[in-house]
C-alpha cells in the first residue's frame, strides 16, 4: 500500500531529479522550443516541496492535488497547466483514502493522463509528454520499474517524430530528430516513483 509519505517522497524525488536535469531539459527545449522547460519545472517543483512542508497534507489524494495546484500557480507555460492537471486529477481520483494500492494508483494516474490529453488535445505520437506518460501508465501494472523503463523508452521514441502539438509543431519537419523536452521530464517524474518506493 502507498501512503501520503510515499507520495511526498515521489514529489521530493521528482524535484531533485528536475534540479539535476534542469539544464538538459532547457537544452532540449532550445532547438525545438523556447529554452525554458528546465527552469519552468524547477520553479514549480521547488514550490511544491516547499508547500508540502508547510501544509503537510495527510492523504495521498491531498498530496497530489496540492502539488498540482501549486504547479498550476507557479510554472506557467504549457507544462504548468498540463503537469498541474495531471497531478490534480490523479489526486482527485485517489479520493481521501489514507492509503491506496498500486492498482488504485495506476487507475488514478490513467485518469490524470486522460485529463492531460483532454486539456491539451494531444494524442500518442504527437511528440509530447503524452508519449512517455501513456506507455508508463500502461506498464504500471508490472510495477514502477517497468513503468520507468516504458517512460524512458517513450521519451527516446519521440526523437524521430514530427511534432503536432506545442511550439515544436511550428517547426514542421524541422522538429524531427530532436527528443521532446516534456516527454523527457515525464520520464523523470515516472522514474521518481521507483526512488520513492526505494526500488
Amino acid at each position, binding site marked *: 500500500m502507498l501512503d501520503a509519505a510515499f507520495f511526498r517522497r515521489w514529489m521530493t524525488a521528482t524535484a531533485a531529479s528536475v534540479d539535476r536535469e534542469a539544464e538538459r531539459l532547457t537544452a532540449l527545449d*532550445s532547438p525545438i522550443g*523556447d529554452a*525554458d522547460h528546465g527552469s519552468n519545472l524547477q520553479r514549480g517543483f521547488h514550490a511544491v516541496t516547499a508547500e508540502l512542508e508547510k501544509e503537510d497534507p495527510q492523504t495521498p489524494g491531498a498530496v497530489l492535488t496540492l502539488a498540482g495546484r501549486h504547479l498550476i500557480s*507557479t510554472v*506557467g507555460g*504549457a507544462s504548468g*497547466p498540463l503537469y498541474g492537471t495531471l497531478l490534480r486529477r490523479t489526486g482527485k481520483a485517489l479520493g481521501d483514502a489514507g492509503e491506496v494500492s498500486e492498482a488504485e494508483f495506476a487507475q488514478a494516474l490513467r485518469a490524470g493522463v486522460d485529463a492531460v490529453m483532454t486539456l491539451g488535445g494531444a494524442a500518442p505520437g504527437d511528440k509530447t509528454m503524452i508519449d512517455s506518460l501513456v506507455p508508463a501508465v500502461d506498464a504500471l501494472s508490472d510495477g514502477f520499474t517497468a513503468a520507468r523503463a516504458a517512460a524512458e523508452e517513450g521519451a527516446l521514441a519521440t526523437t524521430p517524430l514530427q511534432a503536432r*502539438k506545442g511550439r515544436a*509543431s511550428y517547426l514542421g519537419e*524541422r522538429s524531427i530528430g530532436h527528443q521532446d523536452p516534456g516527454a523527457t521530464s515525464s520520464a523523470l517524474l515516472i522514474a521518481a516513483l521507483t526512488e520513492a518506493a526505494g526500488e
Partner: protein
Amino acid sequence: MKMLINVAETVVADALRGMAAAHPELVVDVDHRVIVRRDAPVEGKVALISGGGSGHEPLHGGFVGPGMLSAACPGEVFTSPVPDQMARAAAAAVDSGAGVLFIVKNYTGDVLNFDMAAELAEDEGIQVAKVLVNDDVAVTDSLYTAGRRGTGATLFVEKIAGAAADEGQPLGQVEAIGRQVNENSRSFGVALSACTTPAKGSPTFDLPPGELELGIGIHGEPGRERRAMMTSGEIADFSVGAILDDMTPRNPVLVLVNSMGGTPLLELYGFNAEVQRVLSERGVAVARTLVGNYVTSLDMAGASVTLCQVDEELLRLWDAPVKTPGLRWGM
C-alpha cells in the same frame, strides 16, 4: 552572451521594479506580477487584460494605460503567466458590471493559463470574454500544429479594442472588434540571429554567418526555413509576399514594421522603405505605418511585418488617443 542583469532568476522582478520607478502612472505589483492602470477600475468600462511571457517588451506591460490595456500579466521570460495573475488583474482592473476581455496570443501555454484564469474569474462573478490572436502566416498547415501563433497583430488588437473599451462600448462589441482586428491581420518574421534567454545564457539556436531564418516566431524558436542571407529588399519581397499569399486586402492597411529587438532603427527604417515598395507594387494602400521595437524577442536581430486591413471605423479607433509607455499619441 553577456547581459545587463543581476542574476537570471530575478530578471522579471528587476524589470518590474524599474518599470514602477519609470512609470508612476501605472500600478506595478512586483510580487504578484500585475501591471494595472492607475485609474482602474473605470466605472462601466470593459477591462482589457493581456499578458504572456516576458522578453517581448514593450508588449504587454508597455501597452497598459488609457486607450489600450487595463492590465498586463508578465510571465517568466518566454513563459506564459500563471492563472492567478490574470485572476488578480481581473479583480483589480474590472468594474463588476462591465466584464473583462482577455487578449490571448495563440500558444498552448497562454491559452491554457488564460482559460484557467477565466474559470477563476467567473467563479468571482466576473464576466469574461476572450480574443485569440493568431496572425503568423509562417505557421501554415495549422491542422497539424498548435495553430497560427500570435505575434505583431497583438498590438493592433490591444490598441483598437482598447479604444473601443475606453469609449464605453459593451463587452460583446469590444470582443467582436478585437476578433475582427485579428481576422484582418497577418504577420511574417525573419531572424538574422537567435536570441539569448537569461536562463540559458547562450543563443537558442546556431545561425551561421551568411544565413537567415524565415518564418520565425517571437520565442527564439527557429523558423520554418533557413536560407542564404538576403538583402533588405528581398526579405521585404518574401515577407510581404507570404502575407499577401494569405490575404488580399481590399481596404487600406495599418503597417507594423517591427524590430525583433537587436535590429537598430536605422536598418528598420530602411527595411520599411522596401516593405512600402512591395506594398505599392502589389497595389495595397497604406493608411498608417508604425516602425520600431514593439513585439520583440529579447536581443534577436531581425524584423517582422504585420498588416491589418482597416475600414473607417477601425482606423478611427486606431487614431484615437492612447497614453501608454510604449505607444502614445493625442494625450
